[in-house]
């Protein structure tokens, strides 16, 4: 198994109002296998988005080191960081669409800025992605005129444009209806099979997202627990994991109990 990303004893904390420190990541270590899908789960405010931002160099770690393809990228900046980022595709939690650009322009932006493709080709590519995400007919709208779920999908379309090696999705299906959610995960699976990217999905969509997972990381109070396939999670003895299983994986868990 080749490793795409590795965290070694990474620490991240934020100053608290009272002068103390909030430890969001407390010396966490894990690896993300190449070409596989890793799901990061955990309750709200546990540091899932922070973890993604650390990988992207949008935040700097306060300790430990982060490696991409074996190279230490903890403190890279400038050209090297720019180079590194060309390999990532990102969907931000809030979609982060550009307010002053239309849906079409948003999705076309990475193609226009980062490739030398002609307008016709760009239009074809964008239309095809927008079609897959049921966004055709909305190309001319501005982000402020979209619903939350549509914004998410536009962000997704934008992230998929450059066929990156590593995809980071921060809650790709929040705000989407169950049918759309299912279709998005279907799209992930298809794209993954076609392009073969490494993906990290932060999601609360349990158990649905687990169908995609090759590995699950559960974040809780600064600590990470790494599991292989989701079926392994209920086997953990840790209390918070048990609580997590009871509340989120209820159906799977119970069916296993019965079979077991």
């Amino acid at each position, binding site marked *: 198994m080749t490793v795409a990303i590795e965290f070694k004893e990474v620490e991240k904390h934020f100053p608290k109002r009272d002068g103390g420190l909030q430890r969001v990541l407390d010396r966490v270590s894990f690896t993300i296998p190449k070409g596989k899908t890793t799901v990061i789960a955990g309750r709200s405010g546990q540091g899932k988005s922070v973890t993604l931002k650390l990988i992207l160099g*949008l935040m700097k770690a306060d300790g430990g080191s982060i490696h991409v393809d074996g190279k230490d990228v903890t403190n890279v900046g400038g050209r090297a960081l720019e*180079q590194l*980022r060309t390999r990532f595709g990102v969907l931000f939690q809030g979609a*982060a669409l550009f*307010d002053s650009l239309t849906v079409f322009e948003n999705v076309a932006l990475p193609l226009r800025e*980062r490739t030398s493709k002609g307008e016709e080709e760009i239009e074809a590519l964008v239309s095809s992605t927008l079609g897959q995400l049921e966004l055709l007919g909305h190309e001319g709208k501005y982000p402020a005129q979209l619903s939350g779920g549509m914004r998410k999908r536009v962000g997704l379309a934008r992230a998929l444009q450059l066929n990156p090696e590593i995809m980071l999705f921060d809650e790709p299906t929040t705000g989407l209806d169950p049918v759309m959610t299912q279709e998005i995960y279907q799209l992930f699976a298809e794209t993954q099979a076609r392009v073969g990217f490494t993906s990290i999905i932060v999601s609360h969509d349990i158990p649905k997202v687990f169908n995609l997972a090759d590995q699950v990381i559960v974040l809780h109070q600064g600590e990470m627990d790494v599991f292989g396939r989701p079926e392994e999670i209920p086997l953990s003895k840790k209390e918070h994991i048990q609580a997590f299983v009871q509340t989120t994986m209820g159906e799977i868990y119970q069916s296993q109990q019965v079979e077991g």
Partner: protein
Amino acid sequence: MLIRPIQNLGESGIYVLQDLGRMAIYLVKALLAVFKRPFRFREFMRQIHFIGAGSLVVIFFTAASTGMVLGLQGYYSLHKFGAEGMLGSAVSLTLIMELGPVLTALMVAGRAGSAMCAELGIMQISDQIDALECMAVDPFRYLITPKFLAALVSVPLLTAVFDVVGIAGGYVAGVSLMGVNPGSYIDGMVNSVTNHDIRLGVIKSFVFGLLVVWICTGRGYFVKEIRGAGFGAESVSRVTTQAVVLSSISVLVFDYLLTAVLL
């Protein structure tokens, strides 16, 4: 007891230095990105339209009323010495060397500067700037440098418009209303304004344009770093106010400095 205030003073001092350093690096990056390709010509034109064309109405009314007030006020003062003939000279020199560049910069700060600050601030808090960086698109080349260049082109041109409209306003007030001799108004202006005076006005307008765009976009860009700004929408509104106040004050301070050095 005594340590606390000294500590606070030290902290504030360090913060101010940090902030100045940040802003200085920001300025250098924004200027260096001028050389990065591809240059976003359309965005540059859009910004000129926004900063320049969009400010014309405001500039027109400010200039007209300023010129007319100068005409009346100048007439009132000069009349006491029987020197109404100097009115054209007094109005045009005041406008070209001082009021034109200063008031234009203040108007641009209030109208376009605040909007640019809020735009960048919102882009920053909603991760749009992070998103650009993640696509390996340089936010300076893409967003900020076109604003800098547009301001450097627009502010001097707006200043020229201000001067012309202001001088015409002075003419209306002095000549048409108060009855100053039209020939002496024009002659006074032509004879007293030298190239040196105009150059001073132009230099000022460039410097002020740079100050306004630098401070306004910079405050928005650093919305998350600014101490005491708070978070979210509130932080954007606070830094926007701060940007307009800071850029207005620096325009006035630099006005004095430039006058002292270059006059």
